[in-house]
């Protein structure tokens, strides 16, 4: 990764900590703004009273029933996907890697689509669990395939296994969707990635997994940096690459599986955000992980807010706005921060 120019925040630990604090502040402001703004504006005092002294009024129901779950879903999904992406890129030493490479999104989509097609589209909240289980199963198969065989475990096998399983599952899903218009109509918003109409119950179902994943990921940074140097370097430094790679992938399943269950396959948060972060603060994963978490959450919340306020549609898929906001910034950084040859 010597091809990265040091970004403006690559300096001292104190500088980074300050930057992280600023981002976190920005995130809380954005989250507050996302709850407050909308068709009816809610003053912050009312939001607080809705959370701590719920009185059943219309405004309070609007806040706790609609806006808060939506913002929490965006927050959790964004941070989980970004951290999972950072871990994947470290583990596979491949800039093209994202949680999707483990088959997370395609596994979730496959499970949701096939059950909906078999049992009808009225499966209610069950799809959250379906997505989670599908994602975890696909990722488990990818990991098993990636570690089988004489060569043992290697990043190359892992990414190829991921590509194979992803392609296979996506093909099956497409077959179902081509023949089943009802299911296509029911899932197409979900597959675009959306946090519309999430309920507090759905958020609560997924929160523990994502929280455990995020908290465990923080002290992982040191080992991720070592892993990202490649298996040889990691072994030379006394690390067991197989053990840590396995643990990292378990974390990715928790994080990205939870995120896809909550918000659908918003793929490229996991791809874009870690790159963004590395281009700004360098390749030390002790910092990349927390920065990714905050930046990912910020991106998804702001994108959802923009979709609601600017495009004026409650159901504008957040996946689309994320690309509209994130991609130009990403392109700018990729153009200016990467040196001539690599």
């Amino acid at each position, binding site marked *: 990764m010597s091809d990265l120019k040091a970004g403006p925040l690559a300096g001292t630990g104190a500088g980074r900590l300050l930057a992280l604090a600023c981002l976190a502040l920005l995130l809380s402001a954005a989250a507050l703004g996302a709850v407050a703004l909308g068709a009816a504006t809610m003053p912050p005092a009312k939001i607080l009273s809705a959370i701590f002294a719920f009185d059943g009024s219309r405004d309070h129901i609007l806040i706790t029933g609609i806006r808060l779950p939506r913002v929490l879903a965006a927050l959790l999904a964004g941070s989980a996907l970004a951290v999972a992406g950072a871990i994947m890129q470290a583990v596979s030493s*491949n800039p093209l890697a994202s949680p999707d490479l483990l088959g997370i999104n395609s596994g979730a989509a496959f499970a949701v689509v096939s059950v909906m097609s078999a049992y009808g589209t009225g499966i209610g909240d069950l799809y959250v669990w379906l997505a989670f289980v599908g994602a975890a199963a696909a990722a488990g198969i990818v990991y098993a*395939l990636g570690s089988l065989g004489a060569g043992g475990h290697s990043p190359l096998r892992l990414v190829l296994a991921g590509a194979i399983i992803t392609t296979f599952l996506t*093909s099956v899903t497409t077959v179902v969707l081509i023949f089943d218009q009802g299911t296509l109509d029911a899932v197409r918003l979900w597959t675009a990635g959306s946090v519309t109409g999430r309920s507090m119950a759905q958020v609560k179902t997924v929160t523990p997994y994502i929280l455990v994943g995020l908290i465990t990921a923080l002290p992982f940074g040191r080992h991720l940096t070592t892993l990202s140097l490649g298996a040889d370097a990691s072994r030379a430094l006394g690390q067991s690459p197989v053990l840590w790679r396995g643990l990292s992938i378990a974390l990715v399943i928790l994080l990205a599986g939870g995120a896809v269950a909550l918000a659908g396959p918003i793929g490229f948060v996991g791809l874009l955000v870690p790159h963004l972060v590395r281009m700004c603060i360098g390749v030390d994963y002790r910092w990349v992980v927390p920065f990714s978490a905050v930046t990912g959450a910020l991106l998804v919340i702001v994108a959802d807010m923009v979709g609601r306020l600017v495009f004026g549609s409650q159901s504008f898929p957040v996946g689309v706005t994320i690309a509209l906001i994130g991609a130009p910034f*990403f392109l700018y950084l990729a*153009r200016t921060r990467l040196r001539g040859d690599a």
Partner: protein
Amino acid sequence: MIRLLVVLIGALALLVAASLAFGDVPLGWDELYRVLARTGQAQMQSEMIVWDLRLPRVLLAALVGAALATAGTITLAVMRNPLAEPGVLGINSGAAAAAMGVIVLMNDPPVGLLQVAGFAGALAMALAVYALAWRSGTSSLRIILIGIGLSSLATSFTTFLSAFGDIGDVQRALIWLAGSVYDANMVKVRMLALWLIIPLILAFLASRELDLIRFGDHGARSLGQPVDLVRSLMILLVTLLSGAVIAVAGNIGFVGLVAPHAARRLVGASHSRLLPVAALVGAGLVVAADLIGRVIVPPAQLPAGIVTGLIGAPFFAYLLWGHRHGK
């Protein structure tokens, strides 16, 4: 190497013959022979089925597969990333966005516009990726990252249309996006063959340059290779090959990824061997995919692009994990 080529060509010929014989109206082998040998004893109906319906389709599938595999092999060498396939240049997402736009936004689009739009979308994206990645030279990593960024923009456009477009249009677009060769005819086959022949020969002639550029920019440069020039020419070749394929057959994915890896398993990394073997594997894969897609759930037809995923994935897994003592 010779033996392998003979085996591969034999397998491809067998697949082609099977594709000509099987289908909604199965023909016996003797009837197929009578048609192909032009003995004049075959039934009119069989003549029509073979020459007008099945042969163009098989030839188109073979050409598409060979072109995709060659483009994939070149991309793999130039990008030095095992996941790199022509899609990293934004080709597929650009074509998908353009085609989705035509299908969903236009009422009753004129015949041929879809093809033109697919090619134009692919070309525009590849050019944009290359232009944005150029800063007094290019680098593989920068091309990959710019490709990711621009692809995500194009894909968000596609997603938006698929979420809000008319459901029937979206379903039709889904079939096109999956890639298929169902509306083949001899004119298409001839045009594609003429278009592909020069890029394919150029790619084969450039196999030494591809061997060099795989070593990395520094290594290739110190061996006297003008790296930026070679890379831009190779990207141009990939764009011409995949763009033309997308125009006639839609987004047939996975062949560009699986064929080069399979070929590398079979003959090693030298591109003068790799390119022809990959082309044969790719051709066989798409021909087989189209055949299976036609016969598996008659009278419905699965698009070849989907079947490449369904059968290509296990085949690829077998290649990677089956030969434990392979290279």
